[in-house]
Every structure is written in C-alpha cells, then in structure tokens.
C-alpha cells in the first residue's frame, strides 16, 4: 500500500476505539431490546426458544387500543408543552436579554425547577393541585371555583402540561438567552438605523439568527417530552382512565406491573421509532447543522 493509501485509513483507525465504545454502549442495549421484543418473557426470565413469538407482540401492540390512546396522549402532550415552552421561553429571553442589574441571580432562580428531581416535581404539583388542601384551589376558590384537578380527564391533562411547562420553560429560556446574547450587535444596530421597529427586529433579524439554536432546543424538548414518566407516575398514575398515561408510563406498567418484558420491549421499540421519525422530520424541516456548514 502506498503512502497515500495508508494515510486515507489513519483517521478511521483513530476513530475505531470511539466507534467500538459507541457500538457497545449505545447500540448493544438497543439491539438487545429489539431481540427481547420477539419473546414473551416475564421479568427475571431469560428469552428461550419456547418463548419466541416473532412479530406477534408488535401486532398486539399495534392492535391494542390502550397503547394507541396512550401514544395519542403522548403526542398531544409533546405538541402542547413544546409549543408553549418555546413561546414562553423565547418571550422571557427577549424581555430579559438586556443588561439588567441582578440578572445572574435571576438566571439562577429561573433554572431552579430544572434542578429538582422529576419525582419530587410530581409530588410537589400533586400537592399544589390537591382539591382540598392544595394552594391552587385555595387561590381560585376565592372566585367560587373548586376544580378537582386530578380527578377530571381534561383538567388532569392540563395539570400535567402546566407542571412540565413550569419545569422546562427555564431550559428554553436559558438556551434562547444564550443565543440572543451571542448575536452580533451590529446587525441589530444596522436594522434600527434602517428604521426597523422592535417587532421587525425580533421577527426578521433576531429569531432567524437564533433559529439553529431554537431548533436544537426544540429537538431536545421533543425527545424529553416523549420520554416523560416520573412526573405523571407521581401525579396521576396515568389517570383518570388513560387521560394522562404517557407512553413511557404505559411501557413501565407493561414491564413492572404486568411483568411482560417482551411486550414492554416491543412498546419501547415502537416509541423509539416514533421519536426517530419525529426528530428526523424536524431535522429535514430545518437542520441547524447543515445550515451551519453551508454558511
């Protein structure tokens, strides 16, 4: 092999350890989950030839009305919380991007909800929404309204959304603020000299420029929203009925309540497929990495 041929392979040789670690650490568990999804095994049992079911567990998942309803609830939840978190987070970032005294303290306060363990968040908000003892009803009862938040399908879904928005809007805020503060001030200045109004500066200058960061933020929030488990587990256990049963909770119940590990693996593969398709669609619509390389 000549010198040029050798040098062509050198980068691959250097990358090999990293690829091996990725293959073992990332793909092996996914492949094991895929393998498990072909077997009807209970928790604590190893897959055996007698337990092989082929695609039957996937057919069961796709024909199960509860699984479909849970997926619908999850998608609705993801759309609602991602949209509202982006809107509120970006709005707050635009409001607070200027030089404000004590901003560093404010920023720390804003990110506090993100630091709380999700189970604790679920418990805190379960108490907040308690019909009889919760502070929210203590406030709204002044208007003659005493809603049973977690005992009504629509209100329970709303309560779960509010909780997620409370916890993760600060993440969007921090990302958007960092992006805004990284903008070239001369572009904004030039637009203002040209007579652009505030909303025109925001709409035509700032938002397009921070769009790559916002897309990454949206992608991360979407994936997170599709994986939500602990908060609903602690707040509602998926109820009333299936009104707040996010798909990860459905998977959890299949694995640990009914102990059907193969079935829960099939559900997990379906969720992975949905998450991959949605993420890919988002990247096709607006891929910040591609934009970054082309510019």
């Amino acid at each position: 092999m000549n010198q040029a041929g050798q040098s062509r392979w050198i980068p691959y040789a250097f990358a090999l350890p990293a690829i091996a670690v990725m293959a073992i650490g990332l793909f092996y568990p996914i492949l094991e989950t895929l393998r498990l999804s072909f077997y009807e095994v209970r928790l604590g049992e190893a897959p055996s030839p007698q337990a092989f079911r082929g695609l039957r567990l996937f057919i069961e998942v796709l024909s199960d009305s509860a699984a479909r309803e849970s997926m619908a609830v999850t998608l609705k939840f993801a759309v609602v919380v991602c949209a509202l978190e982006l809107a509120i987070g970006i709005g707050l970032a635009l409001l607070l991007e200027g030089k404000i005294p004590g901003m560093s303290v404010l920023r720390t306060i804003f990110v506090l909800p993100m630091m709380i363990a999700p189970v604790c968040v679920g418990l805190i908000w379960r108490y907040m929404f308690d019909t009889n003892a919760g502070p929210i009803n203590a406030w709204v009862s002044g208007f003659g309204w005493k809603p049973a938040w977690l005992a009504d399908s629509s209100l329970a879904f709303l309560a779960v959304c509010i909780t997620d928005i409370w916890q993760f809007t600060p993440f969007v805020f921090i990302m958007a603020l960092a992006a805004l503060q990284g903008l070239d001030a001369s572009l904004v200045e030039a637009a203002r000299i040209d007579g652009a109004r505030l909303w025109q500066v925001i709409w035509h200058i700032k938002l397009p420029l921070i769009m790559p960061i916002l897309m990454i933020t949206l992608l991360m929030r979407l994936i997170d929203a599709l994986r939500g488990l602990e908060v609903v587990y602690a707040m509602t256990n998926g109820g009333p009925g299936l009104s707040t049963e996010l798909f990860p909770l459905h998977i959890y119940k299949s694995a640990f309540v009914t102990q059907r590990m193969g079935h829960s693996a099939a559900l997990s593969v379906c969720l992975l497929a949905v998450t991959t398709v949605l993420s890919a669609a988002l990247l096709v619509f607006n891929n910040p990495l591609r934009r970054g390389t082309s510019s």
Partner: protein
Amino acid sequence: MTITRRQVLKTTAAAAALSLPLPYYARAQGTGWSKLKGQSIVVNWPSHPHYAVAKKLLPDFTAETGIKVELDEMPYLRLKDAQVLQMGKPKGDYDVCVYVIMWKTEYVQRKFLTELEPMFQNPELAMPNYDRGDIIKGYYEGLGLVGGPRGYLPGPGAKLYGLPYGAECSVLAYRKDILAKHNIAVPKTYDELLAACRTVKQKEPGMGGLASRAQAGHQVTAGWLLHLTPNDGLVIDDKYMPRVADPAAIKATETFKEIIATGPDGGASFDFGQMLNSFLQGQSAMYLDTISVFGPARDPAKSKIVDTVGYALHPKAAKFSGELGGFGMAIPQNSAKKEAAFAFMQWMTSKAQDVKAAAQGGQPMRLSTLDHADVQKVYPVEVYKECLKISNPDWRPIINEWTEISEKVLGVHLSEIITGKADIKTSMTDAAAKIKTICERAGYYKT
C-alpha cells in the same frame, strides 16, 4: 454476720429476676437459634402504618436473638418489582420478603418462595410456644396457603409459604357526631349507606359521605372490589370466564360511582393515603376500607377526629362479605440465611410481639391478642371480630394475571366510569372482553 429479712427478700427477688429470662427465652426460641447469633438478614417490607409500628420491635429482636436486621423499606406497590428481580437471581439479597396477598400464587408458581411446613417441623428452628392455631384462621389461610382450590384458596393441595403480618379485613368507620347531627343511623345495609352519603353531601358543607380510593390503576380496583362481593358479584368464575359485566357487578359499579359522586371533592383521584387522610382530617363522614384505620384514627398527631370515630360491620347488600387482604412474610427460595429469616418471622408474629404491636396501633394477627386487656383498651375488638367473620378469602381472584387485570383493565375502565368519561355497561363489557383475552393468553381455556 447476721442476715436481715430485708436482705433475704432482696436476694431472692434479684435471683428470681435474673433467672426468669433464661427459661423464658429457652421456651420462646428454637433449640438451634443460638447458632444464628451474629447473622445479619435483609428484610424487604412496605411503608405502611403496621410496619411503622413493627419497626419499633426490631431492636428487641436483635437484643434477644443476636440476629441483626437490615431493612429495605419502600411503597407497597413498588415491592413486587424489587422482589421479582431479587428472587429471580440464583442468589438473592433478600432473606425475608413482605408480599401483598395478590402476589402469593404467582410467587409460588415461579418457585420464588420457601415452603414453611418443614421448617415448623424442625425443633431447632421452630418456636416451641409459637401456637399456629392462635393465628386468625382467615389470615393464616388467606395469606399463607397456596396450591389449594383455584390455586389460592384453602383446601386439598394447599401448602404454607408465608405468615400473615399486617393482614387486614374491611371495616366501616364513621363520624359519630356527624351521623348524630343529621339523625342518620349507623348504616347496616348498602341502601342505608348510600342514603347516608347523599344526606352528608347535601347537608354538611365541605364534607363528603364516604372516602374511597379511586386513583387510576390498582387503587380504583381496590375501591370497587369492596362493593363487588357484597353484591354477589365476581371478577371471574370457576372457569375463568369474566363476570364483570354481569348484573351483580354492574350494580356494584353503580354503587361505587355514587359513592365517589357523593364523596369528598376530588375523591376520584385519591390513593389509599389520601382516602385515609380525607377521613382523618374531617373531609369525609365515613370510611369503608381496611382495619389499618384503627391506629391512625386514635393518634392525635394524624387525626383531627380522635374522639368522634365509631366502627361498624361492612354493610350488607345481597349478602355480607368483606375484604381479606394485606401483607404476609415469606422467605425467598434463594436466601442464604433461611434459618435466621424463619426465626425472625416467628418472633415478629409471636404472641408477645403481636400484643406489643397491637397496643401501639399495629394490626393484630392472633386471637389471643384480641383477648388481651391492653389491646381491648385501644382496639374496637368486638367489631373487629365481627368483621373477621364475614371476610371473604375469594374477595378477588388471586391468579397470576390478577395484577394485569386489576391495573391495566379494571384500573382504567373503572376510572373512566367514575369520572363520567364512560358508560357503565359499555365500559364493563369492554373490560370483560379484555379480561377474557388475558385469560386466553394465559392458557386457562385450553381443554
């Protein structure tokens, strides 16, 4: 040197005091317990009022036997995950597992538990004065026996795999002051119970009639089951055919829905703790669930209604029928310290410890405890004895698939019914079809 009368008396008393414990402990322990001294066992048990009391007894166990206890405590519905993972290994970390009654059949079928009869026959391990006949029969059979008729009832083929500890039956607790205020007689029938619920809801501002569990999943099914067998209903019959859409089950579901509608605000999302607190904090006039209310109801730190609670028998619908459930203790098959674990189980459920636990608010497991003067001072023993008579060992079908049926089928459909999202007949017919599919998959209909 002269010996005074006082010195003689002192010496005699001291000698008696020193010598008493030795023969007492010799009788109270198996002959081989001394060999277990210094061992350490791991016990997996629930966060529950009875076990909070039981925890106080552990230092005495270690002092008397020399066996150390490491506790792994968790919410009771989380126990199964941890236990199945541990008991599925060749060598597990748990030496004693506390299980909920509904898991016993599955655990035995999966060969997770140690049969106890051979250990009771071993004089080195068995407490001579343990007296199994003194344990409340329904609890002993309901929690401990597996392999009999339907797999979980007492009878031919049944073997002992656990001992009841924290076992329960159902009782009606009520606010004497509220019922008296509205001239409501203590309900003896379901018609009277529902009428009382309506009256309280209408006439007592901010208060519900009966507190019930109703959160989606296991809790709502447990709440509904309380009314199923009194209405002569069944979940599945002897041929494993679902009966939840039968008229009796529909009647029970209508009753349950009305109880939630006339109950405290937000009651459709209550778990066990919220239901109990609703009663103890004065938001509900009545409580119909396990006897674990006895302890907290007389504890001023937990209850605002200490002096106003009365107890009565679970009301009658088509017949008298109450819950039989709660917890039992067992030894995993893969425990390396079965002898020490067995000593622990016997000691905790012995006569002396049962009295101590009951006197502090725990749940009595023994007939002799119910007759003990200290326990009678704090426990409504007569009502409890009546409740035990109607407790039903077939209150729910304890088949392997019960958890799936309870949480994923009934736990969803009943939740939708009580929150008004689904019609009773349609939803329960749908639930019956799903239960049939589960039983079919489990192979119950193979000829």
